[in-house]
């Protein structure tokens, strides 16, 4: 049985199947909706990964989805304990290992160039019924800074617009857009390679916000403890994971556009139609029996939200703990764009406006709606009920709410008009830590829960009690 580190998507899928976490779907499925709907249905019930083996019109292909959904599954892929996932990954980030270049690779078993490199050959599923043309949602975009050679990778969405043409939704707040600007300055098209069906750690590290100049492949090595095997593309110097399923090579045109959208994005709503950069496809390489990976997007929760939120949280925890003492834990509520940070009560009291300072640090690592800062009184920061308890008991809006107006944000958030404008968000910081001395008498009386030992015993008794309820015909 494959084990950590999982160096290819098919190894990871085999592991999931052998552990009862993957279901094969052998019935014929239609790319126009079956795959999207089954992916949605599975994640809504914290269900298994899905492997589709019979794709209408695409003999020989398989499509997988849901393999990176859920904290336990992600922790296994990252080789860490689910309970300490963020802490362990944040610690691993300190020891990057650069990739190792190889000369031959499974991702080059088939090489299609020119007119043969036809995007119609790839089974890209539709996500929503109004999409018009399908979008590649699990494409990891690779771009290389023209002067320094720094390679940046990130999951981007590509609209399949023609046999050799795609739209790329480059987010103007991200590093790959900044690199593309360097090509524009030089008057050269930007070589790009899109990886589909990489191993799970490559997907996860691609979602991590790292400093400028840091290649996420080095982070792959940090997490696995070994170098990622990469191979050079056919048409550029870009390096891609050797074990990937499909690589689409091309270049981002300088002065040509494609119309993107409408697409059901991670912000819940369909996007508007927008003219965005165009990728001209020059080459497709793949395995002989290729597998397409589909990342379900749209109405949350989705697999896309999960992997993005998890890796954001790891980077945020690392950044906040470097900047301040007393940052204990973090949780990224994956689709509300709200981060809960748990800090030490004593440290919070010793600093001036500690929660606000921590909130600003968190905002540096990504685009979010708000930060809620709680202390160790909060029993479980992943559970909204406990977080709301802290807000109810410790927060006064007139003095504990900080609003930061008009901060740059993705254009996709529908809470502000977006056509032709930069996206922005107001941000908030809620300080729900215990107030300093003078206001703390109420908290010294303790919380009104049953005794902890009794609650633990009750948890053990509970399944049996429920069983007796079923026995009574209820």
């Amino acid at each position, binding site marked *: 049985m494959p084990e950590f580190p999982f160096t290819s998507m098919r190894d990871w899928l085999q592991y999931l199947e052998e552990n009862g976490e993957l279901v094969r779907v052998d019935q014929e499925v239609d790319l126009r909706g079956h795959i999207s709907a089954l992916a949605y249905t599975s994640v809504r019930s914290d269900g298994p990964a899905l492997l589709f083996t019979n794709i209408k*019109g*695409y003999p020989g292909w398989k499509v997988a989805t849901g393999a990176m959904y859920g904290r336990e599954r992600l922790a296994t892929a990252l080789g860490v304990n689910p309970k300490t996932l963020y802490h362990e990954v944040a610690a691993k980030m300190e020891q990057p290992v650069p990739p190792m270049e190889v000369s031959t690779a499974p991702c080059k078993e088939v090489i299609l160039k020119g007119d*043969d490199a036809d995007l119609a050959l790839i089974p890209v599923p539709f996500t929503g*019924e109004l999409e*018009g043309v399908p979008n590649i949602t699990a494409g990891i975009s690779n771009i290389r800074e023209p002067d320094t050679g720094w390679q940046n990778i990130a999951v981007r969405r590509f609209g399949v*617009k023609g046999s050799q043409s795609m739209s790329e939704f480059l987010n103007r707040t991200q590093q790959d857009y900044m690199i593309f600007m360097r090509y524009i300055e030089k008057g050269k098209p930007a070589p790009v390679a899109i990886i589909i069906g990489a191993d799970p750690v490559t997907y996860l590290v691609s979602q991590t916000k790292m400093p400028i100049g840091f290649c996420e492949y080095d982070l792959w090595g940090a997490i696995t403890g070994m170098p990622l095997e990469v191979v050079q593309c056919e048409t550029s110097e870009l390096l891609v994971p050797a074990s990937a399923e499909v690589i689409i090579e091309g270049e981002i045109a300088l002065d040509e556009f494609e119309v993107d959208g*409408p697409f059901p994005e991670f912000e819940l709503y369909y996007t508007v139609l927008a*003219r965005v950069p165009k990728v001209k496809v020059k080459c497709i390489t793949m395995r002989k029996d290729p597998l397409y990976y589909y990342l379900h997007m749209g109405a949350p929760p989705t697999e896309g939200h999960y992997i993005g939120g998890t890796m954001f949280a790891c980077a945020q925890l690392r950044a906040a703990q470097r900047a301040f003492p007393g940052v204990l834990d973090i949780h990224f509520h994956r689709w509300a764009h709200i981060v809960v940070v748990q800090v030490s009560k004593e440290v919070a009291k010793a600093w001036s406006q500690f929660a606000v300072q921590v909130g600003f640090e968190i905002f540096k690592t990504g685009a979010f709606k708000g930060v809620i800062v709680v202390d160790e009184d909060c029993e479980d920061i992943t559970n909204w009920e406990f977080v709301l308890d802290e807000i109810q008991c410790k927060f006064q809006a007139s003095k504990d709410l900080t609003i930061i107006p008009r901060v740059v944000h993705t254009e996709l958030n529908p809470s502000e008009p977006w056509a032709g404008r930069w996206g922005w968000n107001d941000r908030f910081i809620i300080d729900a830590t215990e107030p300093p001395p003078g206001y703390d008498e109420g908290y010294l009386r303790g919380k009104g829960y049953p005794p902890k030992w009794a609650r633990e015993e009750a948890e053990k008794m509970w399944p049996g009690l429920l069983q007796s309820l079923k026995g009574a015909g209820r």
Partner: protein
Amino acid sequence: MAVELTAVQKARKVQFANRRWFDDHLDELIAKYPGQVIAVHGDNVVAISSSNALRPEVQYREVVEQVQGKYDLDEVMITMVNREPVWNVWFPKKAE
């Protein structure tokens, strides 16, 4: 090396052509059908929802009913038209 396409793959290429026509006529379509769901096939709009006041999923069903039986659904592009002018992502002018 010519690759033999399946019927579904050929239909996808028809969809590429539909989409190209849609993109080329976008300003005109926005003026005529803002916020409506339309179907495009063979350089023509072949179905239109009755009103942009309806929820998008209702408009979608109306359009599907109009094209079902008349066209191969794999070869018809159904999408929603913007209510507002197309947003142009800003690019600085390239170096001379």
